[in-house]
C-alpha cells in the first residue's frame, strides 16, 4: 500500500503514525502540522520527522504561521497546492487524515 498521511495537528499524531504500515509512507504536513517541519523543541526536531523518508509541508500553511522555507528541516520538501494535487494523483493510492 502506498499511503499518504495528512498531519494537520502539532500534537497527538506520532503514536498513531507508529501503527500505520505501508510500503511507501508519505507524510504531508498541513495546517498546524507544518510546525513539525519547522519548530524544534529544546533544540530537537519533531520525532514525527523520523517516521518517513517522504515528508512534505505545504508552503501556504507555513507562510500563514510566519514560518519561512529556510526554517524548515532539510528532510522536508516544501510544496504548494499544485504539487499536492500531483502527489495525491500520482504518488499515493490511499490517503488518510490525522
Amino acid at each position, binding site marked *: 500500500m502506498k499511503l499518504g498521511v495528512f498531519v494537520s495537528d502539532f500534537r497527538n499524531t506520532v503514536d498513531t503514525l507508529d501503527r500505520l504500515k505501508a510500503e511507501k509512507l508519505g507524510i504531508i504536513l498541513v495546517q498546524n502540522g507544518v510546525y513539525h517541519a519547522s519548530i*524544534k523543541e529544546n533544540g530537537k526536531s519533531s520525532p514525527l520527522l523520523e517516521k518517513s523518508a517522504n515528508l512534505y509541508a505545504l508552503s501556504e500553511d507555513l507562510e500563514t504561521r510566519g514560518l519561512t522555507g529556510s526554517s524548515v528541516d532539510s528532510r522536508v520538501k516544501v510544496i504548494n497546492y499544485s504539487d499536492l494535487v500531483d502527489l495525491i494523483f500520482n504518488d499515493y493510492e490511499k490517503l488518510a487524515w490525522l
Partner: protein
Amino acid sequence: MADTKLAFIVQRPQYKSENPKLGITHAIAYQTVEILLEDGETVTPALCFIGDGVLACLKDQKAMGNYEITSSEMHLKTALLVDLDVLVCKEDLERFGITEDKIVDAEDMGAEKKIQVVPFETIQKEMESAKHVLFF
C-alpha cells in the same frame, strides 16, 4: 471604585480552531468596551501566551493572503495599539528556539506598547491576581 482583573491564557496554536483567536479578541474587547460597566467600575484584562500558544506571536503571518482571514499577528497589533498587557512565556519561547526579534510588534502602527517576554512565574502571578482566569 472596583477593578476586576481578568487573565486570558492562550495555550494552543492558532488556526486549527477559532478558539485561540477568541482569547485575543475577547481580551481586546474587555480592554476597549465599557458600555456594560457601572460608573466607577473598571476591568483590566491581561493576555498571556503559554505552551504551544506562544507560536501565535510569530511575525510575518500571512493568513489573509492564504486563508482570507485576519491573522493572529493583526489581532496582536490591535491589542498593543489599545495598550493591552500582552505577556508571553520566556521558557516556552526558548523551548521552541524563538528569539525576541521574531515576536510581533506594532511599531509600524505607532504603538508604544510591546509584547512582554516574561518568566512563567510572572504569568502565574498574573493568574493568581486575576478574579477570573480564562483558558483558550
